[in-house]
Each structure stands twice: as C-alpha cells, then as structure tokens.
C-alpha cells in the first residue's frame, strides 16, 4: 500500500497516535475511545497490521494490538507524530 493510502484515513492516524501514547489496546477499547463501531476499528487495525505497523498478541480470547517496534515505518511515524504534536503545542 502506498503511503498516501496508508495514511489517508483520519481514524488510522488517530489509532497510531493513541497507541504511541498508551502502548497497547484491544479493538473494543480503540473503538470506544474513538467513538466508532467495532467493525470500523477492526478494519483499520487490519490495514495497519498488513502494513507491518501493528502486531497483535492473543491472551485467551483477548487480542491486544501494539506497534511493531521493529518496523522502520513505526520509527519514522513516531518521529513524524512527535514533531507534529510538539510543533502544535508551540
């Protein structure tokens, strides 16, 4: 997927910002925090996972998503969001 497609969604950007902040979450919680439905959250998470940006771990029936810290895309995104958010505050 091209970068313009991967980052073309406000929801995906919000998911990334949230996970950079809190570390890991399950789909229901992400949906609740973003005030969107479960299916929508799940769809965006899947896209990010396919891009290698997110990874998940199963605990029984619970699926927790987190950023794939080994991915260079994640490092670049972290940097981008850091700079952006910091600039916003100034």
């Amino acid at each position, binding site marked *: 997927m091209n970068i313009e497609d991967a980052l073309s969604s406000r929801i995906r950007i919000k998911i990334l910002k949230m996970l950079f902040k*809190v*570390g*890991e*979450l*399950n789909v*229901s*919680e992400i949906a609740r925090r973003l005030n969107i439905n479960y299916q929508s959250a799940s769809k965006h998470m899947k896209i990010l996972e396919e891009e290698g940006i997110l990874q998940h771990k199963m*605990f*029984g*029936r*619970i699926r*927790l998503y987190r950023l794939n810290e080994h991915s260079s895309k994640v490092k670049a995104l972290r940097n981008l969001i850091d700079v952006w958010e910091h600039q916003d505050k100034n």
Partner: protein
Amino acid sequence: MSQGRSVFRDETKLDINYVPHRLPHREHELRLLREFFGFTLQSPEKMAQRVMITGDVGTGKTALSQRFGADITHEANLRAINLRYIHVNCREYKGSLFLVLQHVVSVFHPNFPKRGYSGEELLQILVQILDEENSHIILSLDEFESFVEREGSDAVYELTRLQETRQNKPQRLSLICILRNLEAVKQLDASTRSTLQSNIIDLEKYPKQQLIDILNDRVSSAFRPMAVPEGTVGLIAELACSEGGNARFGIELLWRAGKYANAEDLDTVTPECAREAVSSIIPALRKSDVATLSLHEKLFLLAIAKIFKESQKESLSLNEAEQTYAVLCEEFNTTPVSHTQLWKYLKNFSSLGIVQSKVSGTGSRGRSTTISLPRIPAHELEKELKISLSKETEKS
C-alpha cells in the same frame, strides 16, 4: 496554617503508605522472610513458596511484607532475575479473585481489557504472561480475610495449586498471605489449609519501649532536629501501647500532634499537642463524668490539669499533685482530704479513663505513684473543671 517554620522536615515519612528503609524490632522476621524466599534469587523457576504473616492491627505486617518485597526485587534486579513483588489489598478489590488477578495482569499490561473472560481464563492469561516474560511473582495478599470470606476454599486452592495443572513447567507464583490471625483460615477445607499453613510468621504486639524506638526512628526522618521532645514520644508510645501496641496509630498521632504544633506556631511538639491530637481522634472527656465528681475530686483533678498545662510534662508524681491540690484547697477555703483519700480519687479517675496512674516498684524509699494524662488536653480538662466548680460555688 502556621505562619512560622514547620516542625516537620518531611511529613511524607509519616504517611500510612510510606515504607521505611529500616523496620525496628522486625529484623528477625525480615530475615525469616528472606530465608523462605531465598530460592527466588537462585532459581525462581524451580519452586514456589507460601507464607502467612499474622498479627494485630499496627504490628507491622504490611510494612514487613512491602519492605521485604522492595529489598528482594532490588536484589533480583542486580542479579538480572525477573522477579516481581506485587502487593494487593484484598479488601480494596472486594475480596474477589477475579479483581485481584485483573490487578496483577494490569501490572504487566496496564490497558488489558476489563471484560470478556472468566476468572479461570484470567488465571491462565496470567500464567501465559509470566511464561512469556519468564517472570516469577511474589503476590502479597493483604487483608487476606476478605479474600477467604468472599471466595472460600476453591479460589485459594486454585492459587496455591496452580502448578499442579502444569507439571514440569517453571514455577511462576509465590504467595504471602497477610491476616490478623488464623481464624479466617479455619473456614477453608483441610487440603487448602494444608497448602497454606506451613510457614507462619506471627508478629507480636509492640511493647512501649519498642514503640518508642519506632517513633524515634520516624521522628528523626520526619521532623526537624529537637522538634519532638522525649516526653512527647513517650506519651504517644504509651497511647499506642494502650491501643494494642498499634504502631500505625502512634505514627498517625505523631503526625497529628505535629499539625497541632504548627497550628499553634510552636517550635516543638509538646505533650499537650499529643493530647489535643488524641482527643480529636477519641473524645475522652465526658462532661457528665466531670459533673458527677465530688468537690475534692474536682479540686484534685484541677491540680493535675494545671500541672500538666503549665509544665508540659509527660507524667507527674502523686506528691506534686497533692501539693498543688493543697494550694487550690486554700483558694477554695476548704480543708484538704487525706493522702489515702486522694489515692482513691486517683483510682476513680483511672477507671473513668481520665488519667492513667502507675505505681512504681518498692524501693528503699517505698512506692511512688506517677500520673499521666494521655488522652485529654490539659487546658480542656482545666476549663471543664473550672466551669463545674464555679457552678458548685454558685449553688453554695
């Protein structure tokens, strides 16, 4: 709030949640705990341990467990051993195994969902997390009674026999159960009891001298130098001793007395500040008690109150009280009663809980009686007696 300098240097050292680096008079028990859990610093995966700590309120159970937890995890870190100590107050979690386990899981995964699984699944999830992190935890279940009361034998059994369902796998969970006494454990079935009761550390009540040492320890870290005189520490220790050797009560009283000293812009925490503090917790002076006293009882008690108010002493002798009483009798134009009668009055005051009296052992010069006023501020007692006496003189 005081406008002047505070008597405190660092009042957080008197906070209920503060765990001191040194636990006076619990050194032996701390060593024992280290012995029981010594294996965690060698090969934590090879065994699991269960220890019970029992003792009354304020005997240092929680502090002992937390000090041990902090020390052992520090030591484990130095040796690159993945060991965690997790302290849970079961009452805060309504005695529920599910909520306790949820808290433990949240230590590893703070945003773990709160719903969507059963208690049994949660236990398996915890084991999975511990396996993945190659971690051993010492789970300290404080106020274990509420856990037993709510969950009964099955939950305790599940925790203690966790390993039986995963033979030949690394051991992951050790337990410290903290409770007042073993009564609650008697409710458990025999097999569950037998898994728990092998290692028991029972904490005795602190006697007065030990309470003095504990309070002095806190005084040196929480107050400015010389801010708390020996007499005040002695008085607070006496009070904590009468509350069942309750060090927590003593430490809280120390803090409160410091607050009274600050509020009155004093440089030192006087025994009177401690009396103010205790009377704010336990109202000890009943006006009806004062009203029922005879004229001479009131005069004698007034003499005691006056000495304490003016001298800031921790205790006084019966002779001193008798001399001041004689002066008051002159003021009130009445003949003093005998020494024996005063001694009887003193016994009555003690039984009413107004004063405490102690007879020293026989020496070459005979017995002597010391009087202390631990619970009632002297100025408050004096005020109450003066009102009562003025009513009495008005009548006559």
